[in-house]
């Protein structure tokens, strides 16, 4: 101790202090980004609500943001009811989840409980490849192949299918988020103690019974967390819906019709020429804030559930 006192008085090490401060600031950047997101969008959103009432935005059933050609034009402000966008987003996300939840969970079960090490070795990376492919590729494929295919098949069955149906976008999005669910669920299933597996099998339960009645129930919280994360990804997904879902703000629950989504509208509102202060431009930020708040909430809940679950089996 005596020795170190000498060095301490000998050198102040201001550089070290500076370095530590720099490291600290870098870690705080994440908080600034979050604050930046909230503030920038909150500011524009507040301006938007000067022009359009909150109730119209949240409960209005009609979405048609016109740009005024002349400022004094009648009806230049358009209507900004976000309900069709929200229902459209939910419809497509629900279709995606209807594809991804069973596929992802059952794939995870097969990989963690049945597959040999060899099958696992190639099937898992291939599945994860689905998550590595950029969404613009899925969007292209959805618009070019899947949507016409569904339209044609529907036509043969005598169904009226829109060329940009919610079903096509949702289906393709579902495949894209399969690996999100399967890899997280796989971790979660692997965390279930082997003792439970042995207990059940040791009583003469088949593997399927063990999985359905013991392992999956024990892993439910983690699985639910993975579903929530996937749902959040579906809600925030942009390129697939921009390319395959279109811009028709229909208020419908029919998956064969065209709907639009929050993200697709944000892109549509902010591409091309815009005056920065018009209600049309500002509405994109209000939609952005809505999107951010929703996905943030889903993620927080999901992460809390998953962490709780992890602690349980630590």
């Amino acid at each position, binding site marked *: 101790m005596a020795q170190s006192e000498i060095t301490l008085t000998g050198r102040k090490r201001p550089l070290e202090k500076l370095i530590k401060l720099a490291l600290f600031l870098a*870690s705080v950047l994440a908080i600034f980004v979050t604050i930046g997101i909230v503030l920038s969008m909150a500011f524009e959103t507040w301006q938007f609500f000067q022009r359009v009432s909150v109730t119209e935005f949240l409960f209005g059933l009609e979405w048609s943001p016109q740009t005024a050609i002349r400022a004094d034009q009648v009806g230049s402000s358009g209507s900004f009811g976000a309900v069709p966008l929200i229902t459209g987003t939910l419809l497509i996300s629900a279709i995606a989840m209807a594809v991804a939840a*069973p596929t992802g969970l059952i794939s995870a079960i097969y990989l963690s409980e049945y597959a040999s090490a060899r099958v696992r070795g190639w099937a898992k990376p291939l599945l994860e490849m689905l998550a*590595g492919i950029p969404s613009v590729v899925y969007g292209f494929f959805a618009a070019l192949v899947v949507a016409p295919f569904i339209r044609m098949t529907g036509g043969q069955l005598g169904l009226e299918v829109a060329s940009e149906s919610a079903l096509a976008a949702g289906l393709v999005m579902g495949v894209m988020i399969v690996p999100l669910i399967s890899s997280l669920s796989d971790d979660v299933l692997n965390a279930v103690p082997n003792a439970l597996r042995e207990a059940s099998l040791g009583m003469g339960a088949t593997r399927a019974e063990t999985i359905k009645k013991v392992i999956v129930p024990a892993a439910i919280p983690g699985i639910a967390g993975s579903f929530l994360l996937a749902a959040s990804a579906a809600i925030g997904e*942009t390129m697939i819906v921009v390319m395959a879902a279109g811009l028709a703000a229909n208020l419908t629950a029919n998956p064969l019709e065209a709907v639009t989504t929050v993200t697709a509208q944000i892109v549509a509102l902010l591409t091309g020429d815009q005056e920065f202060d018009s209600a049309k431009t500002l509405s994109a930020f209000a939609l952005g804030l809505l999107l951010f708040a929703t996905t943030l909430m889903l993620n927080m809940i999901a992460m809390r559930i998953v962490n709780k679950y992890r602690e349980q089996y630590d």
Partner: protein
Amino acid sequence: MTKLFTSAEAHLKARHRSEWRFRWLGRLAILFSLGFLAIMLVSITLLGKGALSRAEIALTVDLTEASTLEDVNAKKTLRNALFATFPEVTSRGEKRALLKLLSPDSGYELARQIEANPALLGQSPTLWFTASDDIDQYTKGAVDITQPENRRQLKDTTLGWVQALESRGALRSVFNTAFFTSGDSREPELAGIFSALVGSILSLTVCFALSFPLGIMAALYLEEFSKKSRWSDFIEVNINNLAAVPSIVFGLLGMAVFLNTFGLPRSSPLVGGMVLALMTLPTIIIASRAALRSVPPSIREAALGMGATGVQTTFHHVLPLALPGMLTGAIVGMARALGETAPLIMIGMVAFIVDVPNGFTDAATSLPVQIFLWADSPERGFLEKTSAAILVLLGLLIVMNLVAIVLRKKFERRF
């Protein structure tokens, strides 16, 4: 007693059947996803392979009158060459159609060829020129000539000329280098991915230069210097949440802050890279922390025990050991950033970019945005360009991920 432990019982048989069904359900689930992947990749490959070739037409051009490049009126020379090849064409309408055999840029091609070989001047050489999109598609077999004339782009008269050229050996298919070396164009036969590729590289450079050092610094602070507290928990939750924020929200942030508040140049790789950096940062921090955690504490103890300060220990001993892991994480993050489209659209990188961007503040686009733009074009020629651009993008992603895997394997468990 002989039936002991056998599955003779009906109840047991039913249970085994259900076991069997469940196992097959698992296989089907995996096959469904992988089948989709296979169909998608195969169909895009089939569509995209056409972009690798390009049709050219041979024309004998009359340069006898010209002694310098300036003397040559490229357009007129080509027109005369076409009329000379098909002397039977006389009507105005047909003449106009005849000119459409060539791609609109063929004038420049003539100039370039003369420039490369001035000996052509004063001669009447036979040279090759890029054919127009319709003819390009015809040579690739994409035009169904059994269809009635009014249902296809390529009309019968033009078809007759093309077949005449073909029988004379004046129509050929060559490797389409232009696809890799030129920028966007309104004409599908001339459009290339080079400027988009450069835009992507510039954006990723900015993204890497910002997010890698910042990510490492944040990770170092959180793993090596911060004490576990509410504050560090808060930072951690923040980082985890940022990792799951939809990318389009980052685009909105970039638009509101970088463009409108700071006034940075719209459509530029600088702003694009900054937005991508914010998106990639959480990924890099999380990977870097994992890399730091894998450095055994004994190394820290050894350094600290010799009287090194915390900062010295970290920078001399811990960081070098963790760096390969951090780099692996960064490459994976970069690969994701390379595929990002929506946030770049938000900050205006959707422009029609013909020229190769020269710097970080020039207007640029990126490979995935180029794909998005082409995907919207109705011409069949763009369909194959889009698919080919996707293949290039996927190829780059595979290479990046392979590099990450090799790096991980190489530096795995060295201590």
